[in-house]
């Protein structure tokens, strides 16, 4: 299906498939944010890493295989088709790691990536603040220069995985300057003195997000990514990863579409299924010709809601008892909201790709 696989690609796919078939837990792990679920998911990451499957695209020295992007896609598909656990490490693996590989130092990569791959260090993202949701540049949390590092103060919210994570990354206002200027990209420990984490209970009953309160939390210079004050530019590259394919590969949606046609088949189901195929084909094409991350984000966020609404519509009152579709629906509703709201993405596309005036 639109993929011309070389023997090496087939070998990789088969290795992945075989390993997953042998290793994916027969009964689902407890939810990631429960006392039992957190260690189980960390253990799962450790086993993935031991099999060399935690982050196949990374350089070998950091725990990867230096595999081509196609293999990331193949892995993603096999992973979702196998019904494997959610990745407790996703913020680090899919968002921070590309940023470090692009903007970090060799020292930072060598120190941070290997334990991230093994599930020993789980990362939270710390972007939003109460007054800085869609308008990310409105961050007010501050980084104050001290000897050998920075002191962080302020409040972050909608921090995903913070309830179970070890460390977090985000933007802080370090210098005077208008909105996008004077921001610094920093990594900090969630168990440091001065940090308070308050989980946020979500619609589906889980606590995927949390608030983080920071009161003069010390961060060493070694944990600044890039140049102090240059954080906005760097963050935008991470935002691209978050919006784009690295966070939401097509596997999740093609797997959901496959389950959907098991529920019933009508024109609406066909349209949803076709959309999932189209998303996958675009992901394949994007290996050669990149797609604007905002376009990818708008596609997957709408697709995810659509797949679940279609399922709920088919199931009617059975939705609550049938395979997690209703929880999935509630989760999907967060899609248009996080990683930059869909409204923001549309404005970005209109102005950057279509050249429309502000």
């Amino acid at each position, binding site marked *: 299906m639109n993929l011309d696989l070389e023997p090496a690609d087939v070998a990789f796919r088969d290795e992945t498939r075989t390993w997953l078939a042998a290793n994916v837990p027969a009964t689902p792990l407890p939810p990631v944010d429960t006392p039992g679920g957190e260690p189980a998911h960390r253990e799962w990451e450790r086993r993935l890493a031991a099999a060399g499957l935690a982050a196949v695209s990374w350089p070998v020295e950091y725990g990867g295989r230096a595999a081509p992007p196609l293999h990331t896609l193949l892995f993603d598909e096999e992973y979702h088709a196998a019904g494997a656990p959610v990745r407790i490490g996703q913020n680090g693996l899919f968002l921070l790691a590309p940023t470090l590989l692009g903007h970090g130092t060799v020292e930072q990569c060598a120190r941070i990536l290997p334990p991230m791959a093994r599930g020993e260090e789980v990362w939270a993202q710390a972007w*939003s603040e109460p*007054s800085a*949701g*869609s*308008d990310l540049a*409105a961050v007010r949390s501050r980084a104050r220069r001290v000897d050998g590092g920075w002191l962080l103060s302020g409040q972050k*919210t*909608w921090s995903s995985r913070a309830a179970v994570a070890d460390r977090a990354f985000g933007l802080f206002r370090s210098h005077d300057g208008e909105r996008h200027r004077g921001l610094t990209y920093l990594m900090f420990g969630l168990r440091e003195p001065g940090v308070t984490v308050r989980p*946020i*209970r*979500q*619609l589906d*009953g889980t606590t995927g*997000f949390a608030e983080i309160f920071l009161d003069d939390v010390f961060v060493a210079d070694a944990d600044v990514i890039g140049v102090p004050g240059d954080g906005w530019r760097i963050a935008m590259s991470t935002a691209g990863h978050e919006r784009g394919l690295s966070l939401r590969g097509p596997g999740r949606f093609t797997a959901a579409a496959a389950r959907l046609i098991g529920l019933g088949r009508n024109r609406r189901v066909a349209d949803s299924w076709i959309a999932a195929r189209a998303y996958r084909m675009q992901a394949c094409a994007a290996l050669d010709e990149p797609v604007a991350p905002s376009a990818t984000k708008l596609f997957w966020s709408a697709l995810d809601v659509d797949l679940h609404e279609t399922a*709920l*519509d088919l199931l*009617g*009152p059975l*939705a*609550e*008892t049938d395979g997690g579709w*209703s929880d999935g629906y*509630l989760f999907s*509703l*967060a899609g*248009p*909201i*996080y990683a930059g*709201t869909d*409204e923001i993405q*549309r404005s970005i596309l209109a102005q950057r790709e279509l050249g429309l005036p502000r």
Partner: protein
Amino acid sequence: MNESAALRDSVRRLLADHGDDPGLWGRLCKEIGVGGLTVPEEYGGSGATVAEASIVLEECGRVLSGVPAIGSLLAAHALLGAGPQTRARLLPPLCAGDRVVALAWNGPAVIDGDRITGSFTDVLDTAAADTLLIAAAGEIVQVEGAILEPQPTLDLSRPLTTVRLDEAPIVWRDASHTLPGLRDLACSALAAEQVGTAERALQLTVEYVKVRHQFGRPIGSFQVLQHRLADLYVRVQAARSVIGNPTVAKLWCSETLRAVAAEMVQMHGGIAITWEHDAHRYLRRAWASADLFGTPAAEVARLAPEFLDT
């Protein structure tokens, strides 16, 4: 203020002031006559019409109230078709709120001699009720040994019960000639409630986007949000007009409420996906109530079987 507005106003006030009070239903019945709006005065009711009942249900829908308003309306309707003794015995306490009846009517049943076997879904108010009545085969029936099973539902603010009868002994029975109209009344009553819920969800969203600031101004000043809210306004306005037609109401009001609730979540952004915020309660109600007393798809099939032939 005309009578309708006065009724709306007093219901709204009681719901607002005593929403969590266990005696709320009693007060609504005794102070405003909500329990027997459609019941003639001789049985302790107000002798009003379904229009007044719709007003009450809209108000209940606005705040996702747990009072047994729909169930009592349906029970009163069923009882009004029964014999004079039954009416005289059961309607006055129902109207007064002294007695809460859970009526099981949505399902098949067979009466064999003095025993009844059947299964009824979507039974409301079993927690609050002191009396369970079964409507089946043209009769109102009281039984022993009914099996009550909690029904899974997305809607946390309205528990549902499935009632199973396995050759249950009939304690008491009476014929009722109004039972064939139950389903239509149920759909219209539910639609009235959905309209109230949708209207309130839209209002809460409008209020939120007026005060939430991003990029230095209220997000409600952004054109895309304004236009999406305007489209919802159009749907909600129309929804109010279709309550009287059960089929149109089932499809239009269900879809309207789902659309409003989804936008409510979207426009509230992050806080909407938390337990602390009400948005998810509206969303859950939207999906669950669409399927209550039959799904929209089933309604299309009921309307004309051929509507689903391709």
